[in-house]
């Protein structure tokens, strides 16, 4: 089953990449893009029988490896995007 994990920097943490991308978009004239935050996105292919088990395994993996709890938070989704 597919699980998707979205990892983002906690809101108070500086996001140099997002800031630089926003700056680039402004200089290209996209002033309507007020702010950009960049995160990570993982697609996991998980061998588990149920949605719940898939979700819980994905959460565990996100917690242990995919996200750095000191500065990041994450969200898990299972099933079709």
């Amino acid at each position, binding site marked *: 089953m597919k699980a998707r994990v979205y990892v983002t920097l906690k809101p108070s943490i500086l996001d*140099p990449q997002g800031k630089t991308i926003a*700056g680039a978009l402004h200089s290209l004239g996209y002033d309507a893009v007020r702010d950009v935050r960049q995160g990570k996105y993982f697609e996991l292919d998980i061998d588990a029988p149920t949605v719940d088990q898939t979700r819980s395994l994905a959460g565990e993996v996100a917690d242990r490896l995919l996200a750095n709890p000191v500065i990041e938070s994450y969200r898990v989704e299972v099933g079709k995007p």
Partner: protein
Amino acid sequence: MIDPGTIAAHGLTTEEYQRIVAILGRDPNLLELGIFSVMWSEHCSYKSSRIHLRTLPTAGPRVLQGPGENAGVLDIGGGLAAVFKIESHNHPSFIEPYQGAATGVGGIIRDIFTMGARPVALLDSLRFGSLESPATRRLVQGVVAGIAGYGNSIGIPTVGGEVAFDDTYSGNPLVNVFCLGIAPVDGVIRGRAEGTGNAVYYVGAKTGRDGIHGATMASAEFDDASAEKRPNVQVGDPFMEKLLLEACLEVLQTDALVGLQDMGAAGLTCSSCEMGARGGAGIDIDVARVPQRESDMTPYEIMLSESQERMLFIVRQGREAEVDRVFEKWDLHAVRIGEVTGDGLLRVRDGGEIVAEIPNRPLADEAPLYDRPYREPEDLHQRQTLDLSVLAPGGTPSMAFRRLLGSPGIASKRWIYRQYDHMVRTNTIVPAGAGAGVVRVKGTPRALAFSVDGNGRYCFLDPYRGAMLAVAESARNVACVGGRPIGATNCLNFGNPERPEIMWQFARAVAGIGDACRALHIPITGGNVSLYNETDGQAILPTPVLGVVGIIEDARRVVGRVFREAGAVVMLLGAPGGALGGSEYLKVMHGIVRGTPPELDLEAERALQQLVAELAEAGRLRSAHDCSDGGLAVALAECAFGNGGIGFDVAIPGSSDGAGLAAALFGEAASQIVVSVREADADAVLERAAAASVPAQVLGRTGGERLRFTFDGEPAVEVELAEAEQRWATGLSRYFEVPAA
């Protein structure tokens, strides 16, 4: 009203609070209390260490700037100056290894360009727990990647460093970074505010709630509650700093600046009050004008934030437009946040309303000063007693040799420095891993050589001698590449100074550094102190790290560690013989740190270093390498590796009725350097050594596919070059074969 709980939460004692009240002539408000607390934290005020640091020698003919500024400055001739310093980022690196190490690199680089110098090289000095632990491996990966991530991006080569492993560092890794820059002597600028009416400019990243109380955090021991402090992590932005670096150096061309300083620990508070104090001026700033990343920030948060990549500038009145123009070019927006005044006060406004008012001088210079009690550790005598006869047999010398070569402390550090861009700027003339850091100074015939060294084992057993040995080793590494030491910086990493045994280690180590520097004529131009390196009462090995800088007058004469050809004569310069006390051998083979560290005769050390530099200058040396961890056998092996590999056949000095084979091979001693010279130069080298009263002897020849040692006329150890090199090459990297993503 400030209650005792608030005072304690700010890490201030009742006496310190009384002192604040005396200075102000009234009770402080919360913002003022916060300002005092960060300025008077151990990290910013050096309140436990200052009394000892004052004893260090700081004067010398080349010293243009000693301790007290953002970095030290030495005259290197030709109108140029070397600007350098070392800084620790130990606690942040433990909390978040990548960002902690990265922001440490960013911080020390800012200290250098803040002085008007272009940073040209970095070195890192690292300490970790045992690599057997997965947590340590993750820490190592993160720290190394963080140093690489910042240094590589900003384009300053990390040309070398050192790393050691010991369990005492497992909860307190050490991440010390040294940076060296070059400035025109008359382009050096200082961190001072002068000239009433001059503008105070803020440049760089916006202020967020990062690392608030970071400075006080670095001054408190870790415990379980420190997990709570985690949001105090700062994220580095090397791109922003690269822009700041280039913009600063460009602005300095205009002479529109009076002073500048980066915002490091204690951020805006520290930079403004220190600049004011140094210049004897007042500073009047409005926090409402400070660019802010987050909404609803209070003056307290703005003043105490430790957001990275920010600078404070003092701009001459009427010259603002020139400065603005340069910053606009680099897409940085300089903001005028206030001005210099004549009243000596740090005045903070929030949109006009005055929210804090503190005299700068007492805030910066009259921080409490403690002569903390110290006492020799009760078990010192026990530590220093070493009875080799009770140790389990360590296996054959060949087995010990193989094992030592493959131990992470001795093995090749290529896994680390391969991740560092050590070549950018095209000045690196000793390849990474082949000796001290050496960068040529383009436009001159010269090069600068520098090394960072420290030995926690030695300092644990005898902090006074251990610290002297660190000075000697660092200077010796500079001499080995052909450099003449001209100055040094130091980073003092210790446990909790409120414990008398730790304070004793600290005081003894500082005394040792002072005595060694005086004897070797090496002034100390600055440094950094990192205390409270302990977790749950377990302190790190006392670890003073010395960063010695030297000059090579003719860069073409630089010497590397590795043998250059077969058939060269291998010699030992310095008195032969080593002892096992405190050695890496005892640590690796028997898991103990015991005995007394090697003897050090500073006069002999100085003569040896001068001899080696002189031989290098005369073009007589093909290679040179000092004997340190692992003793003579390991030093020789390290010369054989690289360059495709060249074996050797040597006789190890000593005899079986003396200290024995293990000590002869792996015993450690100060003041020993292994060199290789052309056959035709051998006699001349021996003569020069004799004239300089430095013991010297031929050990053997380079060549062949084996490392062969004889002892007392008998074959002692013989290992295939390829096998030995394989062990050495993979001794560290093997721990990282399965990357922890």
